[in-house]
């Protein structure tokens, strides 16, 4: 098909970046990032604070363009298509490539309406919508906790439940790729565990890309890990390999906790 369909690991590549750069008027935040994200796998992006992880993941579904003053070069490919092509609508991009943020952002609506949000704006009929809402809540392992009352205010849920609600809301739109920016950073260990096990479940059917500060979390959930440093990709590979036999000295210093 295209140059992007290089098989990496087992699944084909769903997303990839080619020479991706993001810069402000005065400096580069990301430079020359070329990365493949295989299907049905979790890829973790790690690196010290300020190295550009959030910028990278936001660039993968065109959220970056909501921050004024950032310019983007290179390509981000979704199944071979550059998502920054002028003919491509960011609305469609974000439906295919869902995103969950560090802090759960639930809307002031019921649990049901939160999950239905993306479907309503995409004008799904009530019946499909209902099915999808139920299914997404189940997929996000939230049914046991909210299934008895889907019409209560979403803000009554605990932090961990809210984050899983956000994941359910993202899943309802049926994306092929799920982007997670430190999804457990604002959660307690128990809630973080539940989100982690959800991720390992989800990547059986999705391409999951997760930014994390927590190296142990990367080893627990990620099949592949990419290490960023000062806006550059230092190393990428199977998680085990990267952590046990890093090829680069920088990677080794970072994972052994010598900086960051």
């Amino acid at each position, binding site marked *: 098909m295209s140059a992007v369909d290089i098989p990496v690991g087992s699944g084909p590549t769903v997303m990839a970046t080619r020479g991706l750069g993001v810069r402000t008027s005065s400096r580069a935040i990301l430079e020359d990032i070329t990365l493949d994200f295989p299907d049905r796998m979790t890829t973790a992006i790690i690196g010290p604070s300020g190295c550009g992880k959030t910028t990278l993941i936001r660039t993968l*579904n065109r959220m970056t363009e909501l921050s004024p003053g950032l310019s983007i070069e290179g390509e981000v490919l979704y199944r071979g298509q550059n998502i920054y092509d002028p003919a491509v609508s960011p*609305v469609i991009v974000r439906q295919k490539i869902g995103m969950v943020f560090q802090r759960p952002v639930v809307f*002031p609506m019921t649990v049901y309406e939160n999950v239905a*949000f993306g479907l309503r704006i995409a004008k799904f009929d009530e019946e499909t919508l209902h099915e999808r809402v139920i299914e997404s809540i189940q997929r996000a392992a939230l049914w046991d906790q909210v299934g008895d009352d889907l019409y209560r205010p979403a803000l009554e849920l605990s932090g961990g439940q809210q984050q899983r609600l956000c994941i359910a809301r993202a899943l309802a739109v049926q994306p092929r790729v799920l982007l997670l920016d430190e999804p457990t950073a604002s959660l307690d260990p128990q809630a973080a565990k539940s989100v982690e096990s959800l991720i390992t479940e989800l990547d059986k059917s999705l391409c999951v890309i997760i930014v994390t500060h927590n190296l142990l979390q990367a080893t627990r959930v990620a099949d592949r890990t990419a290490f960023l440093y000062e806006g550059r990709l230092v190393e990428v590979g199977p998680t085990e390999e990267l952590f046990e036999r890093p090829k680069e000295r920088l990677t080794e210093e970072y994972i052994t906790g010598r900086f960051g």
Partner: protein
Amino acid sequence: MSTPSVSEHELLATPAHTRRRILTDRLAQWLLLLPFVAVLVPLGDMIYWISERALPTMSWSVLTENQIGNSGGLHAMIIGTLTLIALSTAIATAVGILAGLYTAEYASPRVAQIGRTAGNVLAGIPAIVLGYFGYFLLVLYTGWGFTVLGGAITLSVLMVPFIYRTSDLAFSAVPATHREAALALGSRRIQYLGRVAFPIALPTILTGIILAMALGLGETAPLIYTAGWSSTPLTGLFSQTSFLTGAIWLFYQQPAGLGTLLALAFQAAFMIMMIVIVVNVALQWVAEHYRRRLRGLLS
């Protein structure tokens, strides 16, 4: 270790400076009551002063009869005022909310700043100037002559800055994270605004509308030169109309002998007060009801 006796327990010891602070606190609480009362007293006094003069001669005929010569009622003025305020509120609300939305959501910081300044300037223009402006534009230039519509449009210019400002503030106060979350789900900006931002902003916007309506209800100057005058009720958007503030202005100046007209002036003032109170209570109820519904959902 020995347990200290109750009297010397550390929680019971109140050092002098703490006692002083408690006193200061009490004092501040009482002192702050003064300005609060200062707000209420003139209002209460005014209500009393007006009621005292309006109520003794109040009857249904004041509501149902047109004024003829020195007698009759305020029928035409009440209908005129209600129509004017309904029209001007509709216009000012539509323009104010949309302009506030644009300022908060779409405008560049520079353009937003210009808009906010313009709104403040507009709020500061004397009502009489707006009246002349309306006269030249809506009475003469359009060739409409004196009309309800011209009056309502002029009045809406007076009201719009308040609705504009609160709408701008309300939309600006919606957390940016909500926008990102909505857009990340494939929402268009307008869908985010309608489904997420607007419901959150609505209670605050309602406050602005209440303020603007109270202000509009009390104005005379913008209407004198635009709405004209008529002792019979208006018949359409392009007919002249009388209005309650006009009745006060007109009848209060009458020679002392014409006691009935003076009474009508006070009854007109009383009616305005009643309308302001009813509108206020109604809209505040809506806002509170809505806020509570949101709070259950918001936090």
